[in-house]
């Protein structure tokens, strides 16, 4: 689904990403982890073509990302940014409907659009405040709305930057389980997650970034080791297997 080779990204004079290489297969759930400033958001934005790489190549679904038109690209990938700030008084359903732009022909909106919008709003539990102004929502509710918008876009690849950062524990589980269910239907999910326990629980693979380089990419067993957490995050942590959910649990000491 994603092929990144020899990727270098600079912003201003600063090199943010150095020689990134990795491959994501369709249907995978990838957790993007790393300390603050390690380049997670930049990597996600470069894949979404919001930042132009200085060097290197990114292929989406086997085709160079530069070969896509904007609309084609939006039919292949959707993106949930970290910042959900908005100043204008749209209602919630209007915002979610904007996710359908790439599927619409000129001046036309169809029934299938309405169906998927409703489906995704119900799935994210945002349908109940569909008529409310986006400005009257809490940060967490707004985050849910933008996730609904990205899902309504119905692209095979979904990129999310900290999608659960503003959500309470119920919705953290709800959204991550929803994304997991989507991967079993064949969608590919790449998401930045700060919470290592959530990352290890839901991701099939973890991509650990450090200082703009890929430190490790693999199953959580290989990535989350006490030694590596010490080297990247500079923390002393104990790692145990949580039998209840069959996932690694990181406890910083």
């Amino acid at each position, binding site marked *: 689904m994603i092929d990144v080779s020899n990727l270098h990204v600079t912003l*201003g004079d600063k090199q943010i990403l150095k020689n990134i290489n990795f491959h994501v297969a369709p249907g995978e759930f990838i957790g993007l982890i790393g300390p603050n400033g390690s380049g997670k958001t930049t990597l996600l934005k470069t894949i979404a073509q*919001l930042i132009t790489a200085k060097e290197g190549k990114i292929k989406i679904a086997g085709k160079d990302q530069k070969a896509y038109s904007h609309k084609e690209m*939006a039919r292949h*990938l959707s*993106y949930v940014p970290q910042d959900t700030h908005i100043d204008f*008084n*749209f209602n919630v359903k209007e915002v979610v409907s904007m996710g359908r732009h790439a599927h619409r022909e000129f001046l036309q909106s169809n029934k299938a659009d309405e169906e998927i919008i409703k489906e995704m709003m119900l799935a994210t539990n945002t349908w109940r405040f569909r*008529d409310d102004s986006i400005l009257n929502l809490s940060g967490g509710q707004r985050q849910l709305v933008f996730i609904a918008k990205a899902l309504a*876009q119905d692209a095979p690849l979904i990129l999310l930057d900290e999608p659960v950062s503003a959500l309470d524990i119920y919705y953290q589980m709800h959204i991550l389980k929803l994304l997991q269910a989507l991967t079993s239907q064949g969608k590919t999910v790449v998401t930045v997650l700060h919470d290592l326990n959530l990352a290890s629980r839901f991701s099939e693979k973890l991509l650990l970034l450090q200082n703009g380089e890929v430190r490790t990419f693999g199953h959580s067993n290989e990535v989350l080791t006490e030694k590596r957490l010490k080297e990247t995050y500079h923390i002393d942590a104990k790692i145990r297997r949580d039998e209840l959910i069959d996932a690694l649990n990181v406890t910083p000491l």
Partner: protein
Amino acid sequence: MNKLTMRWKRNRVFKTTITLVLMTIILAVAFIVGVSLGPISIPFKETIMIFLHKLQLINYAGFTDQQWVVITEVRLPRVLVASFVGAALAVAGVAMQGLFRNPLVEPGYIGVSSGAALGAVCAIFFGWSAINQWLLPISAFIGALFAMFVIIIVWKATNQRSIAVLLLLGIGVNSFFSAMMNVLVATSKNEQELRGIVFWLQGGLEARTWEHVLIISIPITIGIIILFLFGSQLNMMLLGEDHAKTSGINTRVTRNFVLTIAALITGAAVAVSGIIGFIGLVVPHILRLAIGPDHRLLLPASALGGAAFLILADLISRMVIQPITLQVGVVSALIGAPLFVFLIIRAYKGVSL
């Protein structure tokens, strides 16, 4: 929530129809009142009959020659110019506010109006306007486009492509163009030329003729219709560059194209009426409060609202302190500025704009 508000919120066709019908009625009333009232007032019924006669829809002869001349030669072109200018400035305002994601932007803010004004002043200063009547508006178009291109090019050269940078650039461009105009006024060679420039700079809608209507109607009508087609793109630009791009909008092309068209209609408006402020700000604001930010509806509603607003402002300017005629820009500012302050206070109290 009762049934009607529910329908208003959920049914876009219903909301669009109600809004546009209402705005059309407001514009029609403003139009008839604007043409009827003045130093020589003509009954509304008479005015409507003369309209219909002029349009050759009916054959009517119950009017005096004076009434006919006042309406068809004096007021009709003036009110038509007011409609086109008002519509153009309001629509350009909406488009720019959408692109810059700031409800306080106006064509004047980013230097487009003063670019157009400089173009027009150049046409008078170098005597082009005496060669051909089309050279003044063309020169205003070029001035507006030039301002737009300077802003876009400098903006692109900066690393940080933020909206704040763009607006600050506009301030710089504005002061530069005003300075250039002052240079031209100061070095003007003869009395007559100076008077021409000053008269033009004051702006306003006095003594507008069918020639003026002809000059601006085509570019403004085409420009506004093209901008109407960008409604959903502008909606998505409001969510921010990242959202718009990943939802399938070519943000660069959309921005450049929309700004060019906005510059074009602003240039056309400035060419016949000088700089009239606040319309591009106030009309979209009021409408946004009433109907929300959806550009698919906001753009056409603003065109109708801007036209009605300027007709009424012009009417006030010639009726309130008779026989003195105020500049229409003065009236627009008298209504617009307090409203603007009020809106800012509202915004800072945490109520959305």
